[in-house]
C-alpha cells in the first residue's frame, strides 16, 4: 500500500529490522511448511465462522486479570483491539504470511504495547484463543482425533509465528522506554558549562564507560566549536575509580580537543586515582593536571589572560603559577 507517511507499524517494522528475509527466517523457526498451509486451509471456515466466539474467549480472559487493567480501562483501545483480533483470526487462516501480514500483526501488537500489557498476560489470553479454536476443530474432526491434532498443530505453527512477532514488539517497546531514559540520563549527567568567555567547565561524575566517554568527547568537541573555547577544565573529582580504559578515554578527549586548538586542564584527581594511574603506568605527560577545580580555573584564567582582583584592589586573588 502506498502512503505518504509511513504508519506507526511500518516504522516499527523498519526499526525492528523485519524485512522479507527476516520473515522467511521466522517461518523456518516455527517450521511452517506447505503441508501446514493445506491443513490450515481445510479448517479455515471453522475459524472464520466463529471469529466472534474465539475473540470473546480471548478478551474474557482479560476480564479476570488485574494485569490487563490498562487495556480494559480504555474503551477506545479495547474496541480497537477487538477489531484487530478479528482481523487477526481471518488473516491467520488465510495462508499468506508476508510483509503485509507482519505489518498487521505489528499494528495489533502495538495496541497491546500502548496498553502496557506484559507479554505473559498476552500469552495467557492467546492460549485461551487457541483453546477456543482447538475445541471447534476437535468437534469437527470427532471421528479422527489424529487429523484434528495435525490440523490444530499446523494452525499452532502460524499462531506461534504471530506470538513471536507480538512478543518482540512488546519487548521492543519496553526497551525503547529504557533507551529513552538512558539517553536522558546521559545528557543530564554530562553538562558542558561556559564559566567565562572561551572557558568551558566539564564536571564528570560517576562511572565512565566506553559509550559515555564517547558521548562526553563528542559533546565537548561540539561545545568547543560552538563557544569558541580556548581552555576546557575537566573536573574528575566525582570519578571514584579509574582504570586504564577510562584513562585512555580521558586522554582521547584531551588529544581531540588539542587538535581543535584547545587546551584541556584536568583537575580533581584524588590520591587513589593518582596512585592507580601511576601504578597502571599510563603515559600522562600529555595531560595537564591541577590539584583541584579552583586551581584549574585559576590556571585557565591565567592562560586566557584574566587576572582576578579583589574589589578593594589590595589583594590579587588569582595568583596562578607561571606557565611552562
Amino acid at each position: 500500500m502506498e502512503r505518504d507517511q509511513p504508519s506507526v507499524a511500518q516504522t516499527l517494522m523498519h526499526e525492528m529490522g523485519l524485512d522479507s528475509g527476516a520473515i522467511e527466517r521466522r517461518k523456518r523457526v516455527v517450521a511452517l511448511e506447505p503441508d501446514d498451509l493445506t491443513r490450515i486451509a481445510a479448517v479455515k471456515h471453522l475459524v472464520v465462522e466463529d471469529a466472534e466466539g474465539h475473540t470473546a474467549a480471548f478478551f474474557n480472559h482479560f476480564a479476570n486479570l488485574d494485569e490487563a487493567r490498562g487495556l480494559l480501562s480504555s474503551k477506545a483501545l479495547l474496541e480497537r483491539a477487538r477489531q484487530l483480533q478479528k482481523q487477526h483470526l481471518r488473516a491467520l487462516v488465510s495462508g499468506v504470511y508476508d510483509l503485509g501480514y507482519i505489518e498487521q500483526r505489528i499494528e495489533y501488537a502495538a495496541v497491546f504495547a500502548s496498553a502496557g500489557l506484559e507479554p505473559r498476560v498476552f500469552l495467557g489470553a492467546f492460549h485461551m484463543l487457541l483453546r477456543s479454536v482447538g475445541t471447534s476443530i476437535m468437534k469437527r474432526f470427532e471421528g479422527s482425533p489424529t487429523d484434528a491434532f495435525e490440523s490444530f498443530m499446523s494452525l499452532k505453527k502460524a499462531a506461534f509465528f504471530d506470538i513471536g512477532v507480538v512478543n518482540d514488539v512488546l519487548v521492543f517497546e519496553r526497551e525503547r522506554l529504557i533507551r529513552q531514559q538512558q539517553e536522558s540520563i546521559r545528557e543530564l549527567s554530562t553538562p558542558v558549562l561556559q564559566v567565562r568567555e572561551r572557558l568551558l567547565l566539564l564536571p564528570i561524575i560517576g562511572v565512565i564507560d566506553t559509550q559515555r566517554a564517547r558521548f562526553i568527547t563528542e559533546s565537548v568537541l561540539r561545545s568547543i566549536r560552538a563557544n569558541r573555547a580556548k581552555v576546557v577544565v575537566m573536573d574528575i573529582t566525582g570519578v571514584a575509580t579509574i582504570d586504564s580504559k577510562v584513562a585512555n578515554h580521558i586522554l582521547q578527549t584531551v588529544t581531540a580537543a588539542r587538535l581543535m586548538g584547545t587546551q584541556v586542564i584536568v583537575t580533581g584527581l584524588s590520591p587513589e586515582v593518582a596512585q592507580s594511574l601511576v601504578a597502571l603506568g599510563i603515559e600522562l605527560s600529555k595531560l595537564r593536571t591541577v590539584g583541584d577545580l579552583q586551581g584549574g580555573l585559576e590556571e585557565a584564567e591565567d592562560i586566557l589572560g584574566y587576572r582576578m582582583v579583589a574589589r578593594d584592589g589590595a589583594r590579587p586573588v588569582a595568583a596562578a603559577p607561571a606557565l611552562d
Partner: protein
Amino acid sequence: MAIPVLKNGDVLIASIQAALTDRDLVELRDEIAEQVGRHRSRAVVVDVTALDVLDSFATRTLRSIAYTAKLRGAEAVVVGIQPDVAFAMVELGLHLESVATALDLEEGLAYVRAAERSRARAG
C-alpha cells in the same frame, strides 16, 4: 586541484577548500616549502575547515609541512579541524604531535602574533 597559498605580511595562509588527493597534499607541501623561503615568511597557517576527513597520509603530510616550514624558519599552525574529524583522528591514533593547532583562522593568526611577540621579547 592546486591549493592557493596566500601571502599576508610575513604569514603564509593555505586554505584548503575541497577534498584533496595525496598528490595535492604533496604539492602543497612543496609549494609552502618554496614560498616560505621566497617571501621570508615567519609563519604558515594551514586551514582545513572544509575537510571532513583527515587520514593518516594527510596527517603525516601536515606534520611534514610543519617540520619543513620550521626548518625553513617559519612556524606552522593547523587550524579548523572539525569536531568529528578530531574525534575520528584520535580514534585512529593520529595525534599530529608537536604541531600547533588552533580553532579557526582568526585564532591561528592570533597564535602566530602571540608567538611573534614572545620571540621579540626573548630576542
